[in-house]
């Protein structure tokens, strides 16, 4: 698989040359394959948001390069907008970006900026609204009349409507109730499966990452700490805990059961898998009796 995002010793220092200088990303070499679903985790301040803002050229590397589909993003600074459409970025608390009179117009903002015809824009808007399960009749409402969760989904639709090759989401579920959270994550997963686009999901919830991601990128103090298959990353529980991150609760339970001598694999990350494993382990115990 060719890499859709590649970084070469990427570093970013905020306010370089002033008293407020702050190194946020350090010497990151990374390759993200096309079509992957990558979870990005790390302690608060580890540089997750800074790193992902390089992928669509919102931030310019202080040193190093970012290649999207093999193209250096900052080779022609005038054409940087191209990468904004290629890599769609949904910010933390994206509902604060809503501004149009109607939801329809707001979702259409991105596709219109791409220079699509009104007909194409219309198709994109309706498709995106369907993806985030916003009913058609809501499209003519003002975005400020929606509930928090609906606003969030509308903002995500505004990025999905650009149909980016890579969709990057920075903590899309922060501050939502469990149902709203599951709904958004379900929609993102479905988007990934149907479109086959690359998805990067920044999250503080190990459960969500474990459930959704194929690969996990762990950042620590601005550096890549691990980048591997989800399974392999969560298997290194002790190292994660040193960073203040903890594997999913269910993994901890399974590890504990494993240590107690039950035939349950410690490499289980979802409640569903745990249920099957524990039931079969119990069955085995019954039989052995």
């Amino acid at each position, binding site marked *: 698989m060719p890499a859709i995002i590649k970084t070469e010793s990427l570093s970013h220092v905020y306010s370089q040359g002033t008293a407020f200088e702050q190194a946020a990303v350090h010497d990151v070499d990374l390759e993200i394959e096309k079509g992957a679903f990558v979870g990005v985790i790390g302690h608060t301040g580890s540089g997750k948001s800074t790193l992902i803002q390089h992928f669509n050229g919102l931030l310019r590397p202080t040193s190093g390069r970012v290649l999207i589909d093999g193209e250096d993003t900052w080779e022609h600074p005038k054409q940087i907008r191209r990468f904004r459409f290629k890599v769609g970025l949904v910010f933390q608390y994206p509902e604060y970006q809503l501004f149009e009179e109607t939801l329809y117009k707001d979702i259409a*903002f991105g596709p219109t900026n791409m220079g699509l015809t009104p007909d194409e824009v219309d198709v994109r808007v309706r498709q995106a609204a369907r993806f985030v399960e916003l009913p058609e009749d809501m499209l003519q409402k003002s975005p400020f009349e929606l509930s928090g969760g609906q606003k969030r989904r509308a903002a995500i639709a505004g990025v999905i409507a650009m149909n980016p090759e890579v969709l990057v989401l920075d903590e899309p579920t922060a501050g939502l109730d469990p149902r709203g959270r599951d709904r958004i994550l379900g929609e993102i997963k479905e988007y990934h499966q149907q479109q086959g686009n690359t998805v990067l999901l920044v999250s503080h919830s190990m459960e969500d990452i474990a459930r959704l991601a194929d690969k996990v990128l762990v950042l620590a103090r601005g550096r890549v700490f691990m980048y591997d298959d989800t399974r392999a990353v969560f298997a290194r529980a002790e190292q994660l805990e040193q960073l203040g991150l903890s594997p999913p609760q269910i993994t901890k339970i399974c590890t504990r059961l494993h240590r107690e001598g039950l035939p349950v694999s410690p490499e289980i990350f979802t409640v569903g898998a745990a249920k099957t494993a524990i039931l079969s382990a119990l069955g085995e115990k019954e039989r052995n009796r």
Partner: protein
Amino acid sequence: MKLSDITIGQHFPGQSPVHLMDPRAKIVVTGAYIVMLFLAQNLLSLLVGAVFVLITYPASGIALRLILKSLKPVLPIIIFTGILNLFFVSGEPLWEFWRLSITAEGIRLAVHMCLRIVCLIAGSALLTYTTSPIALTDGLEALFSPLKKIKAPVHEIVMIMTITLRFIPTLIEETGKIMSAQKARGADLESGNILQRMRAMLPILIPLFVSAFRRAEELALAMESRCYHGGEGRTRLRVLAFSGVDVWAAVFTIAFVFAVVAINISGPALGIPGTLR
């Protein structure tokens, strides 16, 4: 102009003598300094005013480089003032072309005016650099409290100022975030003519206003739920008190004012109609 260039209300905490001064004293000294700049009628006495800044910046541990930063937003005004004085002051012409003439008085006056503005900005910027917004408004409230006698809502006005100053950095940060979010949706803020650019600002201004109103409402609620009801009968957490530093600052400032006045009397005044001699 980049967002990070905005230095209004920016405060650099420190422990220098200037930082340790009572905010009331600092405000009065800044006022005296400004009066001094306007008293300075010849270049020599104005240079004494410049020396005042050149001493107080290092004394407060603030880099002189920051003067340039604070001048950036007013640069057009300085240039405009310079050009205006250069060409439109009557006197003995040195050069003449077309209908413009440059006179010796013009040059002198242009230099004088520009230097005065630079000194003004640099001096008042130092006040905000070395004084936290809270201390600054505390000082203002104390200085204006005599007006309470005539029922002026001094406390309320000062509270409004405090809140405004407090929220400038927050709103700048918020503007940055909203700009990034809209750029991520392909908003083009850099090209086009003036009208197009103004239109392009809408996706940023609307969310910014919405969030400013939301913040204002939340703040009002938070204040009310803590029983805030204005200035009456309120005691203070930080009680202002003069100290030795303030006495030294007063002596220092008075010395400078005297120097300026003395040079003014002995030196040649600028022949500007309508100005003090």
